[in-house]
């Protein structure tokens, strides 16, 4: 399985060539939105962090996102007085070999002139990036994530296990695959731990789920929305068993945290629940927060399994929408890339849909837009969190 990608100076390859416009506090968000509005339909994406208080996690996430292989150039937008360390971020982007420019609204003449200057710089970058050519990219250079959202009673029977079959094929071919949301693996800890490549990693997997259970118990709500109940899911552990199916059946090679880039091919679990006492609220306040974290860990592309029918895409990396429920697919066909509900109606097998996902992944890697990309979805959200580094048992040699 050979793909095509853009070679970056750090040796990684991207499947898109995007100019990122990154606001470093909410006060610069409007200027960013106005800059990108001049480039509708082009590869210019808006990302950012809204907070004015410093946060090591957010700083690291923005570093990873701005140096993601799908990004070719970055415009940083500062108001001027916020706590975000724009100097360090700019230096890291520059050292990655990417063009970077910082505009500071308070010094650059305010809203109107910053928008104008930003548009000029972005136009120039698009012209330069248009000259880049794709080079062969091995499947072992690809990182794929999977999330599920808007789950119902069909998700765990069709869409998630089909995504799991795709993961199994990709891992076997040498790719890196990441699954996540330890809060949606509550109840699966023992069966999941049995798949760890070492007993020490198994212990880390159990501990990560136990941490999630404690965290959500403190907050009073699990990762369970009213739409899940409407769709036939009764408890978080039932939702978890369905969500778990998207990990496939490969051995679990490691446990990472947001922003950690897996060292080699294999299947990895991402621990998204903060460490320490409960501080900044819910771990991931919506599906896109998880998608952003997977992208920060290097995902070139994300599989998103939905039963109720999420329409979300993402900034930076294409999202392939796998629809688990055949009724939802008929209602939202324009938003869905894969009709996994055929499995429920006896019109396709799990393996057939799994293979269809892998074939689509190759097309999308080669430049074919996903449904959410075509519709202009570029959701992005990043909030406060705090993490300790992973322990030595998390990435067995």
């Amino acid at each position, binding site marked *: 399985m050979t793909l095509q990608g853009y070679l970056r100076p750090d040796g990684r390859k991207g499947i898109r060539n995007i100019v990122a416009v990154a606001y470093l506090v909410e006060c610069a968000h409007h200027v960013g939105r106005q800059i990108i509005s001049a480039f509708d339909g082009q590869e210019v994406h808006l990302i950012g962090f809204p907070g004015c208080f410093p946060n090591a996690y957010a700083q690291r996430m923005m570093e990873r996102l701005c140096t993601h292989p799908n990004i070719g150039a970055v415009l940083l937008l500062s108001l001027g007085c916020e706590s975000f360390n724009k100097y360090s971020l700019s230096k890291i982007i520059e050292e990655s070999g990417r063009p970077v420019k910082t505009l500071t609204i308070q010094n650059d003449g305010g809203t109107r002139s910053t928008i104008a200057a930003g548009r000029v710089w972005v136009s120039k970058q698009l012209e330069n990036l248009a000259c880049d050519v794709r080079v062969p990219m091995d499947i072992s250079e690809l990182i794929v994530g999977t999330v599920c959202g808007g789950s*119902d*009673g*069909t998700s*765990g*029977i069709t869409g998630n*296990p089909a995504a799991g079959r795709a993961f199994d094929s990709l891992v076997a071919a040498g790719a890196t695959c990441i699954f996540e949301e330890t809060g949606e693996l*509550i*109840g*699966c800890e023992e*069966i999941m731990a049995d798949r760890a490549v070492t007993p020490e990693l198994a212990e880390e997997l159990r501990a990560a789920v136990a941490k999630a*259970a404690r965290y*959500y*118990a403190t907050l*009073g*709500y*699990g990762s*369970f*929305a*009213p739409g*899940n*109940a*409407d*769709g*036939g*899911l*009764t*408890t*978080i*552990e*039932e939702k978890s*068993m*369905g969500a778990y*199916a998207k990990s496939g059946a490969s051995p679990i090679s490691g446990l990472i945290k947001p922003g950690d880039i897996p060292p080699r091919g294999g299947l990895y679990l991402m621990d998204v629940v903060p460490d320490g006492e409960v501080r900044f609220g819910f771990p991931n306040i919506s599906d896109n927060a998880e998608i952003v974290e997977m992208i920060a860990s290097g995902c070139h592309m994300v599989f998103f399994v939905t*039963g109720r029918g999420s329409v979300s895409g993402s900034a930076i990396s294409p999202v392939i929408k796998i629809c688990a*429920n055949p*009724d939802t697919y008929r209602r939202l066909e324009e938003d869905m890339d894969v009709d996994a509900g055929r*499995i*429920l*109606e*006896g019109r396709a*097998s*799990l*393996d*057939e849909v799994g293979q269809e996902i892998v074939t689509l992944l190759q097309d999308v890697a080669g430049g074919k837009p996903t449904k959410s990309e075509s519709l202009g979805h570029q959701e992005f959200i990043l909030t406060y969190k705090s993490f300790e580094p992973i322990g030595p048992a998390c990435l067995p040699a």
Partner: protein
Amino acid sequence: MGSGAPLTHADDPRLLLLSEKDNVFVCREDIPAGERVRVGEGGVTLAKTISRGHKIARHEIAPGAKVYKYGAPIGSAIAPIAPGDHVHVHNVKSDYTPSHFFDIQEVIKK
């Protein structure tokens, strides 16, 4: 579920049995109230419509007993459940964190 095999069927093609260990079936499609389903001894007439993706009991489940789906426990019964009954938030609770929904009558109507 075996590789490439069709989904495991119960005796009734409208119902899925995901694991032999399970005490619930999953409805593959909406099954209207009044329909006979092949559950328990001699079958059961559904008291209400059960929507696609929802569960009905395969066996009697006593209060406090675990409910199994995918061969794994997904919560505990909080009321007596008879074969063919809708199994949902009105008669099962999580053994971890409570489920969040708006109006229980609306949820179990589905």
